[in-house]
């Protein structure tokens, strides 16, 4: 960090904010604040330059057209890529996982180049994956389980440089087996919910990557209760 305030960039919320992705930035901001670490959310809108000086970048999901525009904007204004190259933390959700890869192919069979931040390719699956997801951590990356809601047609294949975030227990994720991707300090997932309110351990992992500070857990009873409820609901999707 260049100074004591953690700067969270909310990237193109006007294009990639379809699924409450603002919530991920809010959770990071509050979890920092509640531990006495100063932070701020910087919204980077369509048409504006992308700063390369932020500590954490949050990129959300969006519709197909919006996703194409977002890639073009991020390529023309490569602040996010410069920041990632120097080790800034990046969270990519849903469309995020697709546009960060080498390329992605839509349902109309047109292939678009991605930003090349993670070793992956995405393509349109035969059916839309919709519903509650439950997954177990891959490579001991985090504690407990991963919970979220998926709504996507894309499927993603990871190359050797990228690791999966989790192994799918219920739902589809990248391909029915693994969910998400981690490469350096870039973490991607298909899960909404949004993902960080439902998975505080992932939020804290991102904060620890950004600050180097080992955090003590926060006790938020509503979050504990929500995780239990959603895990149970995912079990019911599995039985259905």
């Amino acid at each position: 960090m260049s100074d004591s305030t953690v700067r969270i960039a909310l990237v193109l919320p006007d294009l990639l904010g379809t699924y409450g992705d603002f919530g991920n930035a809010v959770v990071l901001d509050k979890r920092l604040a509640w531990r006495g670490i100063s932070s701020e959310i910087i919204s980077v809108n369509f048409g504006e330059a992308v700063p390369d000086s932020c500590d954490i970048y949050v990129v959300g999901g969006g519709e197909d057209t919006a996703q194409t525009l977002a890639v073009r904007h991020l390529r023309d204004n490569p602040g996010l890529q410069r920041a990632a190259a120097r080790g800034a933390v990046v969270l990519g959700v849903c469309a995020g996982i697709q546009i960060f890869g080498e390329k992605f192919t839509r349902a109309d069979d047109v292939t678009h180049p991605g930003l090349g931040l993670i070793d992956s390719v995405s393509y349109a699956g035969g059916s839309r994956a919709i519903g509650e997801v439950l997954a177990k951590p891959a490579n001991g990356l985090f504690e407990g389980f991963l919970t979220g809601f998926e709504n996507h047609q894309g499927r993603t294949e990871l190359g050797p440089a990228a690791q999966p975030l989790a192994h799918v227990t219920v739902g589809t994720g990248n391909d029915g087996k693994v969910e998400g991707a981690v490469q350096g300090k870039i973490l991607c997932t298909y899960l909404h919910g949004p993902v960080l309110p439902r998975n505080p351990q992932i939020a804290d992992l991102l904060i620890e990557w950004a600050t180097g500070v080992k955090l003590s857990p926060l006790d938020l009873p509503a979050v504990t209760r929500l995780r239990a409820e959603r895990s149970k609901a995912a079990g019911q999707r599995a039985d259905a």
Partner: protein
Amino acid sequence: MSSKLSQKMGLGAGGMIGGRVALKLDPQALRRLTTGRRVALVTGTNGKTTSTMMLSRAVTALGEVATNHSGANMPDGHVTALSKQPDAPYAVLEVDEGYFPAVAAAAQPDVVVLLNLSRDQLDRVGEVRTIERSLRDTIARLRGCTVIANCDDIMVTSAAKDAHRVVWVATGTGWHHDSASCPRCGEPIRWQGEHWQCSTCDLARPKPDWVTTDGFLIAPNASKVALSLRLPGKFNQANAVMATAAAAALGVQIEEAVRRLRGVSNVAGRYRMIQRSGHTARLLLSKNPAGWSETLTVVKESDHPAVLVINANEADGRDLSWLWDVPFERLRGRTVIASGERATDLAVRLTYAEVEHKIVPDPLLAIDALPEGAVEVIANYTAFRDLNARSASE
């Protein structure tokens, strides 16, 4: 008979089953039942039921009106409503956005009211741009139809622009979070005060024919008419002006239309007051971020305790991510109870909004748990429906 059966089985207010049977027996029922009538269709994300009720009240100035009052806004609901009033020369129908192309093709409306378009039930209805595209294609094909369109909504403007005839209404309301990029060409939209235009193509805010100002409408003939509505909020003023413009397109005099629609006070239970255990609770329905944002503005007029009720059944949309698009931060400092089948999701949202709250999943018990007096109850679709039914029966 089947309507009664539907009511008995608790399947709804009996608005759909009869129509479903009729459509099965006669797939052309909608076309047949609208032939020979003057038809107005009302669609959009928010305000459909209220605007439909206002418009049907206004059009009674011209004659009997068949309408689907209960919010049964899919083709079976339309068939039921039309069958009940076979001789009504006018029909005013609320139409679900997803069904609009099919209904418009069958009904060949004289007037279409296009209120607003924003994100709603993404897992069921689909994404906003897909809806805009299908409305646009349908509207461009309608012959001899006048579209009443909200020019403060970019998606609506794009959907209505190619119509045979458009009457533009400045409602002062629009949800801008889904339209940073132009629905026509994808380039950024630029705003300057109330005016907006695409940075690249020719899509821009048209000059309004009707204007909504604080509590008044300004008609195309420059006359200013007081709305004096019984319903609260800016969005109901917008609904009223849209309905008046639509009524005028059908031939109702402006003052006459406003006089008739201003009497609307409770729309399928919305805004209804219920008395319970020393409480006077006002029931408010909000289904999506744009609706919640408007409703939070309405409840801000007082500091009454609030019960917020969230379900996520199929009719609500199962993905609750949208809770994070609602500015619940505005409720800081107020007594709040999180309720409904998904009270816990809401509680997490409120926690991060730093709004103190309790969790009471049953909304009636939540009202009971508050100090006696006025209470605002805001619920999403199935939560509202269930609460309305229970509070009527208890």
